[in-house]
């Protein structure tokens, strides 16, 4: 029986020639990753294991990104604990000034290759599927065990295939493709499944679009969100200095629990309205709703391509006087590229605040937490009740064009209506 992309990667990591959905396996991992938030708990768990040593310090990475630069004494202490552990065990450690959001940073540093398994104590680890790697979120106990053994236990997920046809119109990006996908299948539509994305639409999109889509696979309940690695992937990995990796393809007779097809030529920018990522509407349907804050960047749309998109709107325009805009590049490299390309100038001149890389407001942490009743357009991935602050605040998820246009207009706005479609 043929294997899906997910099954091939997993078989490759458990010494079997074939695995199929439903099987339980212990899989070797290529990277174990944690933030300070999950890392500090993982350390406590790790130290409870008698006789444990880090199985391979070069494959264990701590990235301080959630509450950093330390927002309070507690986060400073937590980072300090992680730093000391990293030093003691010689594992790879990134923090302020040398870091970024883990899912952007690791691929950029050449630490992720196609065909890898990335076990990250962060639910958005599925992001690494944009390079054809099986990234999956694990808990801190899992992370502790993986640090000691270099393995995680898994149930091989079923796969569900999504095929996107055609050239997307101007202003439509990967973010819109995934939002529409979650609308059609619901927030548990891919529950414990691997979402496999394919189609000729990606000939017209770039890796940052794949990044946003794989990133949000978890919002449909998926175990992983995968793209088959191709020449675009190879080019990215070559520039990043990554290992060659394994370029798996699904077998023609691989079994999928469902196949969904989309004609993206008919798409327009979408917005997920409170309080679930499945409540997706065309931006034109919600246009006009006043906003208090706009946040652009973080992991889902924090790549340089995303900042370029935002700058395209902001250039020569200003944030509406009633609105606060926060731009958060996904890594130091993205920040520097934005600086070199003049994007930061555009943002500052447009009255946007530009932050150091951090997860910050996405989880209601810092750098733009919302007050009661405030409405925010964000390029992040979750709009659950209270996600960015007060339980009565509202979060609208959108692509960077829509977010920037809304910042300028002072209300949810379609970039097409603001600028036209050329």
């Amino acid at each position, binding site marked *: 029986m043929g294997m899906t992309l997910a099954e091939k990667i997993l078989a490759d990591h458990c010494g079997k020639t074939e695995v199929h959905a439903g099987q339980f396996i212990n899989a070797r991992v290529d990277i174990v990753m944690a933030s300070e938030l999950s890392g500090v708990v993982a350390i406590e768990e790790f130290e409870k294991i008698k006789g444990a040593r880090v199985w391979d310090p070069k494959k264990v990475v701590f990235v301080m990104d959630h509450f950093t630069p330390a927002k309070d004494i507690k986060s400073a202490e937590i980072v300090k604990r992680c730093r000391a552990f990293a030093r003691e065990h010689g594992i790879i450690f990134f923090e302020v000034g040398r870091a970024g959001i883990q899912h952007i940073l690791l691929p950029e540093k050449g630490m992720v290759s196609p065909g890898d398994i990335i076990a990250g*104590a962060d639910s958005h680890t599925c992001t690494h599927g944009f390079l054809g790697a099986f990234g999956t*979120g*694990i808990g801190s*106990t899992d992370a502790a065990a993986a640090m000691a053994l270099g393995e995680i236990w898994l149930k091989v997920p079923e796969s569900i295939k999504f095929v996107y046809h055609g050239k997307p119109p101007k202003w439509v990006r990967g973010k819109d493709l995934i939002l529409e996908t979650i609308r059609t299948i619901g927030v548990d539509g891919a529950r414990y499944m691997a979402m496999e994305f394919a189609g000729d639409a990606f000939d017209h999109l770039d890796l940052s679009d794949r990044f946003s889509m794989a990133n949000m696979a978890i919002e449909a309940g998926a175990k992983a969100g995968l793209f088959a690695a191709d020449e675009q992937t190879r080019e990215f990995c070559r520039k990043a200095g990554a290992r060659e990796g394994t370029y798996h393809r699904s077998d023609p007779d691989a079994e999928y629990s469902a196949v969904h097809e989309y004609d993206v030529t008919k798409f327009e920018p979408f917005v997920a309205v409170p309080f679930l990522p499945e409540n997706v509407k065309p931006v034109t349907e919600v246009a006009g709703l006043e906003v208090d804050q706009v946040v652009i960047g973080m992991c889902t749309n924090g790549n340089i391509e995303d900042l370029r998109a935002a700058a395209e709107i902001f250039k020569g325009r200003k944030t509406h006087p009633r609105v606060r805009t926060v731009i958060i590049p996904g890594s130091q490299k993205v920040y520097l590229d934005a600086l070199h390309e003049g994007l930061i100038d555009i943002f500052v001149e447009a009255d946007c605040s530009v932050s150091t890389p951090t997860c910050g407001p996405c*989880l209601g942490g810092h750098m733009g937490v919302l007050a009661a009743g405030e409405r925010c357009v964000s390029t992040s991935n*979750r709009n659950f009740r*209270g996600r960015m*602050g007060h339980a009565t605040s509202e979060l609208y998820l959108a692509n960077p064009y829509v977010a920037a246009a809304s910042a300028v207009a002072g209300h949810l706005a379609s970039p097409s209506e603001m600028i036209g479609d050329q």
Partner: protein
Amino acid sequence: MPFESFHNTTIGELLTKQAGRFAGHTFLIAGGGRLTYAEAEWQANILAAGLLGLGLQKGDRLAIILPNVPQFVVTVFAAAKAGLIFTPINLRRHKNDVLARLAKTQPAAIVTNAEHAGMIHELRADVPELKHVISVDGGADTVAWNQLLNSGGGAPLPPLAPDQTAALLFTLGITGDPRGATHTHAALVRNAAANASALAATPDDVFLGAVPFSNSFGLTAAILASAVAGSQIALLPVYHADEALKLIESAKVTVHHGTPTMFALELNHPDFKPERCATLRTGIMSGAACPPELVKRVREQMRCNALVAYGLTEAAPGVTITHLADGPITATETVGRAMPGVELKVIDASGAALPNGAEGELCVKSPMMMTGYWNDAEATAQMMDADGWLHTGDLAVIDADGPVKIVGRKGEVINRGGFKVHPGPVEMVLRSFPGVKEAAVVGVPDTVFGEMACACVVRAPGAEFSGEQLRAFAAERLTDYAVPDRFVFFEMLPRRGGGPVQKDVLRQRVRIRGRVWKFGKNIDTDAIIPARHCNTSDPRELAKHCMEDADPDFVKKMRRGDVIVADTNFGCGSSREVAPISIKTAGVSAVIAKSFARIFFRNSINIGLPILECPAAVDDIAEGDEIEVEPTTGTIRNLTRGSTYRAEPFPDFLQRIIDRGGLLAYVEERLASSG
């Protein structure tokens, strides 16, 4: 009574007096060497002065993490002479357990060895009071024990009274938390004198120093009792049955203390021969319930008139002990009579004292009791009442003529349709079946009997037998209603911190009966947490509040044993264990879910919370239904609706993770097996 002169003395005076009386007589036998009473006294005095010379002051704590070596014994006497409060820690304890004990007692110095000094340095940051790490055999950043011994003394030793605190001895509370029982000099020495007296010990005796000196049995009944009698003590640094047998033979041991397991290991050892133990005269079997058959074997095969004692760390520890002249029934089936000075009573649930022959909770009062748990008034108040009675939690019967029988643990008695079953004796029978490594009997809810007995059994490696075979074996030896109704096999039984089997956990592994709380897909802990707690960035704090956020009254409403039935999205995206830890803390015993989905589920398994995957049950069960769940068989019974469902079985290794109480234990096992 002999040794009465030691009823009100300090530990230091004890050694000084004996050094005067038995100066050249051997006290310690270790390896090829010997230390006389005079030498021990001299070393203890110099070391005491050396410790004070380091800046330690009367009342400071001195931790000891050592095997049973001469330096342990000398350090105990030196600390006592210097007015330091010594607090021994079992050297087999894991780093985190050691830290918990150090954090609790904040010692100013630790006496240890090179093997453990590294670990102590790692923990130093969390023990701010710790100034010196003293090592008996070197190691970086340590003060050499020998150097203190060569320091020549100097500092005058402080005056001490027998009622001053001498030691903090660790014991585990009900939840496995360490508590330091605080003992005076007088309590420990008097208890040692009572032990020596029961053993009729003399300077001609040679004690076996095999029980770890870090616990009260080893400290009081071996070190101090042998000193009281002017006897010798042969030290076994770390226990192995063959080493013990060799030492008994070579040192001509006459007094053999040990736990029942130690005696069983020696008797079952292939090299055991009665003539190797020819010098044995007596000894104390204690530390765990003592099967009568084992006492008989020790008396017959080792030809050792061993005494059976009952005690608690809080009581110094000796409370009751059999007599050398007791008849065979008292000697093997009871824990003897109250030691001199000890008052006993048994009480009913209301706290009223019961007449002799009635079964109730055993309470102890004596001048040898702890003064309380170190810096823990709350735990002390739970254990000791206002009149000074220590409530042991053990169920006992005091015979009219004095001997005490321990029949079980309070809270463990199984009421099987009106008949009371005590797990202890049933467990002893099951353990005597060849091939049974461990056995624990727990009561589980039953529709007909109200409660029934379930035997949880661990087979020895390679052993193969069925529950039916074990049932037949038990039926030949037990009253019919005491024969367990069910036999469930486990790979291991849950324990915490090396303590006894956690029966509450085990009970829930077998059968859970509770009320259902049903959660749908809109419960999302990850999302709601930041809304209410955006001022905390500490995931560990979030765990405390997580489920309260999902439903503000959740934690208050939960009763222990309740079950969560979860629709698909429960705990969506939660990348940490906040949700499962929180619901486990709230008392939830199991989760039934539609699918083996998302991080929440794997996290539940990883922390040992049984999760059953059963879509049909999730659809059919309503909030408020009473259900019964058997995690080991995957059976779910809806008692409200009368329906039964079968959950998808887990593969063996996941079941092992749950049985072990979590992923970490599984990892430890993997690491150990890979060397």
